[in-house]
């Protein structure tokens, strides 16, 4: 078992009126190594919150989260940062790239936090771009790239530290159908190589391409 969530709850205190909002209500979920899982649900169902907890971007209010057998639900922020850097790769709907940097610089950012020697960063980043056949974009500013190119750069960045899990939050949400298909192909290829892929989506063609669909509604898994 790679990812195991037991009784996970997440409550937010809303800023406006101080009323607690339960985003996740007793989630029990296991994801095995090498699975490609889609998390579906309507807007506000708790999909992104679930993804953030899985990706150690947020801590559950209660419950246990085991990652590779180790309980990470009560780990410190510093430890969670290290886990995020090493074990997960993130692909977001709007790419979350540094627009003023070029593609090579963006791909190299996770290596900075992994304490990779600075002299090796560009070489490793270039190799990653080559693996996705986008080495021609290396020196181009990200702000000048198309949506599809940006998402491929984001995927290259997500893979640079050889993570076990790729977490994607609506990765095709900002793309046209041609680019969406292309991105989905990349995810399928990565999954075939043994990567665990977890995708939050409300697009059926993305969900249907996955091994399993988890539907979430009002903070609960249906």
């Amino acid at each position, binding site marked *: 078992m790679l990812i195991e969530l037991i009784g996970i709850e997440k409550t937010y205190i809303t800023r406006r009126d101080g009323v607690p909002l339960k985003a996740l209500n007793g989630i029990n979920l296991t994801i095995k190594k090498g699975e490609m899982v889609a998390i579906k649900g309507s807007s506000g169902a708790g999909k*992104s*919150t679930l993804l*953030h907890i899985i990706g150690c*971007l*947020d801590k559950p209010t209660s419950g246990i989260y085991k990652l590779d057998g180790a309980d990470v639900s009560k780990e410190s*922020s*510093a430890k*969670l*940062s*290290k886990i*995020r*850097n*090493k074990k997960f790769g*993130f692909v*977001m*709907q*709007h*790419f*979350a*790239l*540094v627009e*003023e940097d070029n593609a090579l610089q963006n791909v190299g*950012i*996770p290596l*900075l*936090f*992994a*304490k990779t020697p*600075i002299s090796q960063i560009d070489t490793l980043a270039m190799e990653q771009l080559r693996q996705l056949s986008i080495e021609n974009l290396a020196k181009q500013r990200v702000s000048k790239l198309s949506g599809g190119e940006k998402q491929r750069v984001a995927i290259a*960045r997500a893979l640079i530290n050889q993570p076990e899990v790729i977490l994607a939050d609506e990765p095709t949400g900002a793309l046209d159908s041609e680019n969406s298909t292309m991105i989905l192909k990349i995810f399928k290829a990565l999954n075939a190589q043994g990567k665990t892929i977890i995708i939050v989506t409300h697009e059926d063609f993305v969900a249907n391409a996955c091994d399993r669909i988890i539907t979430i509604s009002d903070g609960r898994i249906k």
Partner: protein
Amino acid sequence: MASVLIAIKLLWKRKLANFVLVIQILLSIIMLAQVFVAIEDYRDNLRAVNELPVNNTVVLSIFDYYDTEYVTQQVLSSPQVESVGRVYMGDIVFCNNVSCNLAAYNEGIISRYSPELQSGSWLSDYSSFSGNAIPAVVSSDMKLKVGDVTDVSLSDGQTRKITVIGILKEPTQYLYPWGSASPEYFTASSVISQKPVIIVRYTDFGETSVFETPMDVPITTSIFIFLKSDAADTNMDTFRTEWNKYGEITPMQSLVSTFNTNTNTMIGGTTIMFVVFLLLAATGVLSNNVIQSLRNRRQFTVYYLLGMDWKKGAAVEVCRVGILVIFTMALSLIAGKLGLLMLEWMTPARAFLFYGLVFLYIVVMFTAVGAGFMIKLMREDLSGLLKDLQQGE
């Protein structure tokens, strides 16, 4: 190392905005220097003017068509007058490779007036000398020390040997009345000079023409009339009636009191101006810094997503601020060397104080927003920041 690298990247990315920020701070430092010097100048003048004798003292600014010696004798003949204080002002002289004023005080001045010294003794501690070297009190910018014996080159070609008995406290300020001392025109510069100086006892100096005023040069001389202690204030009208024909007569007390009031008002006004200006400058600088921090917030969110922890984030911000502080401080030092900060108007101790204030100012300007930015980021949860990031795009 990674923190420094990221900090440099962040700075370089916004090089134009950072350049504007640094220039804003530098310009405000240049203005601050002028205000600092103005306030210090006012305070110095206050000190110097309040060292002047005031009790039972009136000042007579003699009309230029009267002979000063004649008027002095007329005044001395009055039974209420104890003595007359006079400063004999000579041409520029040279001593120890410094051109300076030469001021010879008579006994009346020496016994009633003693400026603050940083070392040594005042002329009143010495009676007339009998040796070769004339006792002299000099300003610190003469680069002499107590006990030094040196030659003074006079404008008439003669030389005199002096022995230094005292050094005036910095910044140089001493009695040197050359203008009118009437209340309407009284400023510190009418009676005080800040130029390098050698002060001697008039009777020690011997025969010389350096104190003689050329006939064709109309000059207002002021003498200090020291009244006997039993001369009551009501006699002031009598004195005016008696001496008005020779010049403008004003009690020293009212002169100094008027000067103090005006100067304190100027100090207050300049200080308020200083504070207002500082607030305006701070507003401009902080606004720029806030905009940069908002932009950096987006970038920091991406970095946190990819595995940077809060400590590293704080380290990056500290490095960024540190680089800006060092760079701006270095530019301030260069501005000082180029004469933009009026350092030549400050004593070394004041220049040190000024740079200390500048450093504090720079650090506060850069860290205030940076600290607020980091605290805000650390308090927000990462998923909230990511949602803002997604929505912002």
